[in-house]
């Protein structure tokens, strides 16, 4: 297959690039976007309410559960979006219900500690309690099993069609859910930054995050800032959870497990810094996927024939995916506790 004729070398290079795009780059962009949206929620709560919200993974599960239930109902009455998943139609209602839920949680749990000006550790413990309650509610309503709710077209490009189109050996598959995730994440991030930089409320939030006392003195209503923060967090969590569920599958336990990569992402980027959360999401996703990918086939296209590696050229077995976020977390806390873009010291 490998020769040093000009055209063959060129197709080999293309094949290698397509292979890498198919198994590393596109999955990383998708997974990274999902992590970024989730980590943004964590970082906003940390920046403004000043505690690490352990309930975030299960908040995503709650929002997604509402989306799933709404989607099933829409499907049962025959409403759909054609090639796009029906879940997009269900999303606004799910976001609204999740917002009501977080505001209720804030009023019944966190407000109490805020009024007493409790130490951040108390908030964290309270959030673990909230995590367990949300965990139980989700399992009680929808059960612990895998739920499928994606419909519409599955692919933007299918691997086989790509091969026929280009005549290459490797195919490139892009799923609708991947395209949606990347584009929705991009739009949301733009909207969020516009909101934080340009609007009065956004500026108030940033002022409150920078210096609470000064913000209070200049007449910012703290309860309003807190409420807006929760609303944004619930929106981001529901969208991130739904996109993750559409792309992979919805199972409450995997959302709970997402907590580790989410916190790793928020901390790597610099917790409390929204831009850092986004960067962190992609860094964690890229590390997880690229370290556990086997590069044998990729190298085979690029090196001369008899240099082919015997082994799989895989740094870590895929079973260690979660260990990767853990290692990143520990390394960052040891070497640069503020994260890549200066956030707060945790």
């Amino acid at each position, binding site marked *: 297959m490998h020769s040093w004729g000009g055209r063959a070398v060129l197709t080999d290079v293309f094949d290698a690039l397509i292979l890498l795009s*198919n198994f590393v780059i596109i999955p990383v962009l998708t997974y990274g976007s999902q992590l970024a949206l989730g980590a943004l929620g964590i970082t906003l709560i940390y920046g403004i309410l000043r505690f690490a919200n352990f309930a975030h993974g299960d908040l995503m599960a709650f929002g997604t559960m509402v989306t799933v239930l709404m989607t099933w109902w829409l499907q049962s009455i025959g409403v759909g979006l054609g090639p796009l998943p029906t879940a997009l139609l269900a999303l606004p209602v799910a976001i609204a219900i999740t917002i009501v839920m977080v505001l209720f949680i804030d009023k019944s749990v966190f407000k109490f500690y805020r009024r007493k000006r409790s130490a951040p550790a108390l908030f964290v413990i309270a959030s673990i309690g909230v995590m367990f309650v949300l965990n139980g509610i989700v399992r009680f309503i929808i059960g612990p099993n895998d739920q499928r709710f994606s419909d519409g077209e599955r692919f933007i490009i299918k691997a086989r069609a790509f091969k026929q189109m280009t005549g290459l050996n490797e195919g490139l*598959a892009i799923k609708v859910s991947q395209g949606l995730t990347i584009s929705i994440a991009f739009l949301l991030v733009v909207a969020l930054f516009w909101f934080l930089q340009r609007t009065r409320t956004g500026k108030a939030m940033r002022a409150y995050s920078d210096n609470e006392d000064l913000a209070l003195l200049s007449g910012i209503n703290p309860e309003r800032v807190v409420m807006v923060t929760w609303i944004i967090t619930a929106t981001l969590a529901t969208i991130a959870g739904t996109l993750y569920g559409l792309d992979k599958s919805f199972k409450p336990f995997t959302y709970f497990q997402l907590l580790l990569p989410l916190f790793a992402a928020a901390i790597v980027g610099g917790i409390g810094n929204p831009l850092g959360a986004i960067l962190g999401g992609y860094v964690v996703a890229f590390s997880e996927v690229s370290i*556990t990918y*086997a590069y044998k086939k990729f190298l085979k296209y690029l090196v001369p024939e008899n240099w082919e590696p015997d082994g799989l050229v895989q740094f870590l077995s895929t*079973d260690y995916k979660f260990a990767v976020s853990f290692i990143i977390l520990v390394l960052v806390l040891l070497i640069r506790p503020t994260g890549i873009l200066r956030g707060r010291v945790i």
Partner: protein
Amino acid sequence: MKKLLLPLTLLTAMTGSAMAAGNDVKVGVLLGFTGPIESLTPDMANSAELAFKEASDSSLLLGGKKIVPVRADSTCVDSAAATAAGERLISSEGVAAIYGADCSGVTGAVAKNVAVPNGVVMISPSATSPGLSTIKDNGFFFRTSPSDARQGQVLAAVLKSRGIKDVAVTYTNNDYGKGLADSFNNAFKAVGGKVSITAAHEDGKADYSAEVGALSAAGSKHLAVFGYLDQGGKGIIQASLDSGAFENFVLADGMIGDSLIKAIGKDLTGTVGTVPGGASKGAATYSDMAGKAGIKKDGPYVGESYDAGALIVLAMQAAGSADRAAIQSKIMMVANAPGEKIMPGEIAKGLKILAGGGDIDYVGATNVEFNEVGEVLGSFKEVEVKGGKFATIKIY
């Protein structure tokens, strides 16, 4: 009214237990009604209970006794939960024997921890790990499905006959998956095939694209999946098709089921696999019976389940009592030659012969014949996905 309630309840409770002691014999039905093979177990349990009903309805069993099946959940994967369920069947329900369990890991755990120490016969319709051939069971553990050592050989022969020489193997990370992968790899190499990579996968993950990426890097065109159709196995196939990493699959018994075709769709066409079962006369008869009883005819392990149930009642009759040890002493006798051959649907005939002091050789739906450790050699079907279902190609 209130005054009446307590005596009334007591009375019902007493008559209930009196009846159980007098005319009913309890038999445990221990299967994973929840967990990774929950889509298969209802048909399996119904098949075994069909055999129990046949015996009960004949009024010939131990002079007119009825079998009362008691269902318990083995979960398929959680050994502690399965052991607790087995414990409940044996100590509080007082079952005479246990039909089950299903998956190899939990079956071994229940046999070792509860059934064998208490001297209760266990007949599993579906535990296929080669490791179970050598457990210390004091003769109390039987299985009506063959060991995977055999399935591995058959699968290797199927691939050879189809000219498939190079496969990647992924297995679910437990006793069943590991045992099957080992036996297949050895058998496939022995017939001249090449296994480019063997990697385990964990069940219950949201996303298997990383696993599939590693598997495809080894360069094989075919992927052998030894997992579960409602779990990681399905995830692996879905991720393979999504990324275009593999289009051709080789499946073992845990992956064969209509729900897989329903979930994946027409991309599965051409997939080959093996599943225990044969074209014996008994299989056709049983298939008719199962169809009439509303049980999926081609479902995996339904014939084996019926046979396991039938063996329990026949051994009971041969022993002349529902005593646990007495049942154990007669299983081999009713299962193996010599004696009058008993086909599916002929349990009443068998009971009659045994009551008259005769000898039978139970053939059943799957040609049951136990070897010295109490397991069948069995026959396997080669199946291929054609026109949206698993079609039988050949019997091994």
